[in-house]
C-alpha cells in the first residue's frame, strides 16, 4: 500500500497506523500516550494530523494507514493545536521549570535533578534525564500557559514495595494501565474518577500489594514522566551503560537489560522483551542485591581471632598454604548449580586435580532456590561458595574457606574469606530450567576487588603451583569444556511463573535469603515462608 505523508510517497504495511508508518520512515510526529509495546489509545492528542477526506484532526496513532491516503503532519494549524494541547497537559503537571526564563542557565549549572522529597519541577524530578514531556515542551516551544497551573497536591504513595508513585506528575496517558492489562490481563490499576478528579489508582482505595500487583515494574518502564519510579533506581539519573544479560535468580533465565551508572554500578534491570513481564526478582532484586551494604569487597584472612582485610596475593598465599595439608579426602568444595558452567568446571578441576579429592559437592536448589547440604564424612577442610552448610558442621571443620558475595554466620568463623562477583557482575554461560545455554554478560563492576568465582579458584590453583589453570577469560574456560551457542531468552511467549504469581518466586540465591538483602521483598506475601522457616531463615 502506498500513501503520502508530508509530500513523501511511502510504502505502508497492513495493519499499521499512520503514526507507525511515519515513524518507520523517520518522519517525526510528536506523541505521548503511544508506546511501541501497546495498542493505540488516542488519548494524548499530540499525534494529530490532517488527512485529506477526513474531518477535523484525527489522531494518527489510531488511524489505520490506507491506500492513497494524503497526510500532513506538520502544518501551522497542527503546530498550534499541538502546542495548545501540550499547554493544557502542562497545566496539570509541575511545569514551572519548563516555563522559567532562567531555565537555560539553571540547567547548565545544575544538569541533574536534586534529590527531594516532593517533586515540584524538573529541578527536583528523578525523571529529568529521560522525560518525554520535557522533550516535547522543548520541541514545541512552550513558553506560557493560558491559565495558572494546578498542583493536585496528592499525597506521595510510598507504602508499596519497590514502586514510588507521585500522581501529582501524572499526565494520565494511561500507559501504565494499558501495559498492566496487556501483560497480566487484569486491571490492578485503572483510571478512577472523572473530570479533574481522574487519576490512576487501585479499586476501592487499596494498595498495590492488596490489589494483587505482581511487581513486574512494566508500568514504571513505560511511564513517560516521573510519576511512577523505581524506588531504588530513581535518583541515579540516566544510566550510561545498558547490557543485555540473563537473570539467574531462577530457572526461567529471562533476558534482562541491566542499567549501570557512570560508576559502573548496577542501577536497574528490566526485561528485554517488553511484551512479556518478568518477575519481581528480575525487575527489582538484581541491583539491590548487588549493591547491598553487606557485600564482601576484599579478601579477609583470620589473623589472631579476627578477620582482617588483605590484598589478593596475601589471601591466596594464605589459602594455598593452609589447604596443602588437606589434599586428599579430607577436603570438600561445595557449590550449587546456580554457578556458571565455567565456575563449576573450574571448581571440579580444582577439587579433583589440585586437591585430589572426590568431594566435589554440587547442590541442586529446590523450587524456592534453597540449597542445603551436609559434608561428606571425614571432611576436615572445606571451600564453600555460599551459605549451604549448617553452622554446627562448619564449626567442626579444621579449615574453612568461604568464597561468597555476602558475609554469613559461617563466614564469620572462616579462616579465609574471598569476595566473589555474582549475577550481572560476571560473564559466562548458564544452564536454564530447560537445559538450554544462556549467556551471562558482565554489565557492571563488582564491589571492591571482588572477582568471579572461576578466576579466584584458578588463581588459587596457580598459587598452589598447579598447571593448566591459567585461563585468559571465562570464554577460554568455556572453550575448554566445549560450550555451544548460548542465546538470550528474548522471544518468550509465556510469562515466567513467578511473574504471574509472585508468591511462587525463589527466596534464596546461593544460600542467601533474598528478602534479607532486598527490603521490598519482605513486604510481599510469600507462601514460601514455610521454606524460610525450614532453613531457619
Amino acid at each position, binding site marked *: 500500500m502506498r500513501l503520502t505523508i508530508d509530500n513523501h510517497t511511502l510504502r505502508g504495511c497492513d495493519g499499521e497506523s499512520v503514526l507507525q508508518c511515519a515513524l518507520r520512515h523517520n518522519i517525526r510526529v510528536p506523541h505521548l500516550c503511544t508506546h511501541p509495546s501497546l495498542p*493505540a489509545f*488516542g*488519548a*494524548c*492528542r499530540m499525534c*494529530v494530523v490532517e488527512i485529506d477526506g477526513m474531518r*477535523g*484532526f*484525527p*489522531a494518527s496513532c*489510531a*488511524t*489505520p494507514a490506507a491506500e492513497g491516503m494524503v497526510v500532513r503532519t506538520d502544518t501551522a494549524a497542527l503546530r498550534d*493545536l499541538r502546542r*495548545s*494541547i501540550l499547554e*493544557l*497537559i502542562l*497545566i*496539570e503537571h509541575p511545569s514551572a521549570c519548563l516555563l522559567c526564563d532562567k531555565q537555560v542557565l539553571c540547567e547548565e549549572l545544575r544538569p541533574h535533578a536534586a534529590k527531594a522529597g516532593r517533586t515540584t519541577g524538573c529541578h527536583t524530578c528523578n525523571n529529568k534525564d529521560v522525560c518525554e514531556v520535557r522533550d516535547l515542551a522543548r520541541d514545541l516551544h512552550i513558553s506560557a500557559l*493560558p*491559565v*495558572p497551573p*494546578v498542583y493536585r497536591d496528592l499525597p506521595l504513595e510510598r507504602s508499596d514495595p519497590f514502586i514510588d508513585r507521585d500522581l501529582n506528575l501524572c*499526565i*494520565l496517558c*494511561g500507559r501504565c494501565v494499558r501495559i498492566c492489562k496487556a501483560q497480566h490481563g487484569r486491571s490492578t490499576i*485503572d*483510571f478512577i*474518577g*472523572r*473530570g*479533574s*478528579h*481522574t487519576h490512576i489508582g487501585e479499586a476501592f482505595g487499596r494498595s498495590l500489594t492488596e490489589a494483587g500487583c505482581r511487581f513486574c515494574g512494566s508500568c514504571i518502564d513505560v511511564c513517560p514522566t516521573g510519576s511512577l519510579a523505581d524506588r531504588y533506581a530513581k535518583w541515579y539519573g540516566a544510566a550510561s551503560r545498558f547490557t543485555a544479560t540473563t537473570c539467574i535468580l531462577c530457572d526461567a533465565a529471562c533476558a534482562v537489560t541491566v542499567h549501570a551508572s557512570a560508576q559502573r554500578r548496577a542501577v536497574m534491570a528490566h526485561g528485554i522483551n517488553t511484551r512479556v513481564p518478568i518477575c519481581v526478582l528480575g525487575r527489582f532484586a538484581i541491583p539491590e542485591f548487588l549493591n547491598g551494604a553487606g557485600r564482601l569487597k576484599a579478601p579477609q584472612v583470620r589473623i589472631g581471632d579476627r578477620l582482617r582485610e588483605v590484598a589478593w596475593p596475601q589471601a591466596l598465599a594464605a589459602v594455598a598454604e593452609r589447604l596443602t595439608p588437606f589434599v586428599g579426602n579430607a577436603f570438600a568444595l561445595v557449590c550449587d548449580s546456580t554457578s556458571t558452567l565455567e565456575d563449576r568446571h573450574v571448581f571440579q578441576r580444582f577439587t579433583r586435580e589440585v586437591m585430589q579429592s572426590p568431594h566435589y559437592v554440587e547442590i541442586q536448589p529446590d523450587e524456592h532456590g534453597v540449597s542445603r547440604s551436609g559434608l561428606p564424612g571425614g571432611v576436615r577442610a572445606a571451600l564453600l561458595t555460599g551459605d549451604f552448610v549448617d553452622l554446627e558442621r562448619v564449626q567442626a571443620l579444621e579449615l574453612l574457606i568461604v568464597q561468597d558475595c555476602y558475609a554469613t554466620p559461617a563466614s564469620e568463623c572462616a579462616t579465609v574469606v574471598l569476595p566473589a562477583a555474582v549475577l550481572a557482575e560476571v560473564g559466562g554461560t548458564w544452564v536454564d530450567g530447560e537445559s538450554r545455554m544462556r549467556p551471562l554478560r558482565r554489565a557492571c563492576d563488582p564491589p571492591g576487588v571482588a572477582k568471579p568465582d572461576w578466576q579466584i579458584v584458578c588463581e588459587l590453583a596457580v598459587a598452589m603451583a598447579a598447571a593448566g589453570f591459567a585461563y585468559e577469560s571465562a570464554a577460554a574456560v568455556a572453550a575448554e569444556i566445549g560450550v555451544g551457542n548460548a542465546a538470550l531468552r528474548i522471544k518468550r511467549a509465556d510469562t515466567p511463573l513467578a511473574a504471574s504469581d509472585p508468591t511462587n518466586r525463589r527466596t534464596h540465591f546461593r544460600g542467601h535469603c533474598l528478602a534479607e538483602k532486598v527490603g521490598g521483598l519482605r513486604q510481599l506475601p510469600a507462601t514460601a515462608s514455610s521454606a524460610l522457616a525450614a532453613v531457619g531463615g
Partner: protein
Amino acid sequence: MISLEQAYTAARERWQALRTSPVPIFFVGAATCGRAAGAGETIERLRAEIQTRGLQAQVIETGCLGPCALEPLIIVHKPDTVRTCFAKVGPGEAVQILERHVLGNDPCGEWAVSRVGPDGWDAVSILAHEPMMRGQVRRVLANCGVISPEDIDHYLARDGYRGFQQALSIGPDAIVDAVKRAGLRGRGGAGFPTWRKWEACRQTPADQRYLICNADEGDPGAFMDRSLIEGDPHAVLEGMLIAALALGASRGFIYCRAEYPLAIVRLQVAIRQAQALGLLGDNILGSGFSFEVSIKKGAGAFVCGEETALIASIEGRRPMPQPRPPFPAVSGLWGKPTIIQNVETLANLPLILRHGPEWYTELGSGTSRGTKTFSLAGKVKRTGLIEVPMGITLRQIVEEIGGGGIDGKAIKAVQTGGPSGGCIPAAKFDLPADYESLVAAGSIMGSGGMVVLDEDTCVVDLARYFMSFTQSESCGKCPPCRVGTRAMLFLLERIVAGKGTADDLQRLDNLAQTVARGSLCGLGQTAPNPVLTTLRYFQHEYEEHIDKQQCTAFVCRSLIRHHIDPERCPGCTACVKVCPTAAIDGVRGAPHVINPEMCSQCGSCLSVCPPIHAAVYRTSGDLTRYEPRSEKRKSGAAAQDLESAACD
C-alpha cells in the same frame, strides 16, 4: 399461549370497555414528572378513598401528557358525562373531585382544565385546543398519557406492533428502504441518517450483530426519552424489533440510566408482556426471526451517551470513548457490528412502517423530516414535554407553545442541545428548528433539551454552569477535554467573580478552539458550544462583566451590591434581624444602612423588606434595580391561564 390476533381482539374489547365503562375511572399521569409533582400521593389517596367508601371505581396510571406546569394531571371518566381533565390535583383536590364531581354534579371548575369533546376522549383531543397543545403534532407521543404503559392490551388496541408485523411482511431490505425514504435521522443529537448507519452494519460480515437502545439521557433539562419510555415502553420495543429485523441482530440491549427507576420497571414489564405474546424470543410469530432484549443500567456518567463509551460500559469496562474508526456499526459491542439508536429514533420506526414513509415525510422541512420531541424547560410559562413538526420556528415553540416569559419577562435566548449545544438569541427565533439551521447558528438539535432563558438569566453564568457540568463529566482520557474545560471554567469563574481581564475573552476563545478541535469524542468536541455561542451572541454581557463589573441580569453575586434607600426605609428592622453577617446597622424608626465591608450579598434583606416599602435595591456596575416583589402565585393560576386561553 393465545395467538396475536386473538390478543388484538381481546385488547380492542377491553379498550372499548374502558370508553364506555359504567364505573368512574381516574386516569392519573404517573410518570416520574407527575410523581415528582405528587401524583403518587394523589393515587394513594384516591385508592384509599374508593376503598373506604366502597365505591365501584378504577384508578389507572398513565404516562406523561406533557404540560409539566399542570402536574399532577388527571382525566376523570364519569359514566354518561363528558370526560374532564383536571390540573394540579393533589390528594385534597382529588378527594374533592371525587366527592363533588364524580359523586355530585359540581364540575370543579377551579381545577378543570378542559373537557372531552364528543368526538373522542383521548387526552390529546381534550387538550388540543389549548395553546400549549395547539401547535403540537403528537405522533411519537400519541400514546403518552393516554394508555396505561404497563398494559400491553392498551398498546395493541391502538394498533401496537402492527408496524412490526408490516416489517416482517416486507423484509429487511424494504425496511431499510422505507427508513431511507422517510429520511429518518438519529434523534440523539448529531442527526446522522439512520439508514446509512444500518447499511454499514449490514454490509459487515458477522455471525452476530447487536442493537442497543441508548436511553442514557444525560443532558441537564432533558427528559423526552424518560417520558417516552414511561408513557409508551412498547413503542420503543417495537422500534427495536423493527431495527433488529432490518439489521439481522438477534440480541438487543437497552442502556438506561439507573436514575430512571420507573422507566426501567416499565420496560421490564413491557418486555415480559411482549415475551408472553411471543413478540420477543425465539422464532417470533413463526417468522424464523429471533430477538432478545435485556436492560443494562447505566451508573450515571454523561459520557456514556457517547457510543464507544456506552459499549465499554455494557462490556463492563470503564466508559472511556475510543477513537474511530472502527465505527461501532462495523466493530462495536464485543467486536461485533453494533447499532446504537436513541429511544426516540426507535419509537419513530413503528410509525414509518405502519403509515408508510410518504405519510411520515408530510411533516418536516428540508432534510429534517417528521416530528421532534422537546423538553421545554426554564423561564417559560408553560414548561413540558412537547412534540412538533421539524422546521417550525423557535418562536412558535417558545412563544406559542411555551407561552413566552413568566410574568411577562422578556425572553433572552433559548439553549438547545444541552451542554453540547448553544444559546440562540431571541433575535434569531425565526430560525426553523431543524438539524442544519441549529448547527448554522452554532448550536445543535441535540436530543431535544430546550431551556428558555429570560432577562433574569445571566448568559455568562449559564456558560459557567454548562462548563462546570462538562468539566466534571469529562471521562478524563484526553487533555483537551479534561484540562481544557477546566481551564475554560477557571476563566469563566474569574469573569463572574468580576476578576476577568481584558484578554480573557481571547483566551477563552482560543481554549474553546483547542477543546473543540483537539478532543477525542463528541463530548469534548461540543463542550465549548455554550461558551462559543454566548460569546458570539452576547459578547456585550461578557464585556460588561469584565469592564464595568456589571451583571445585567443581577445573577453574579460578586458583581451585585445591596443598598437601602434611606428615603423609603421606615426603619422596621426586618432586614436587621435576618442579616446573617450583621451588616445592617439601624434602630427602629431610622433608615437602616448596609455596611458594604460586611455584606455577603446574600439577598436576605431584599426578600424580607415589606413590599409597601421596597427600600432595598441592588446595583451592579451602572445599573440600579428596585425589585418589585412578585406576588405569590395562587395555586391553580397556571390552569386558569390555560383555561382562559382555551376559552378565547
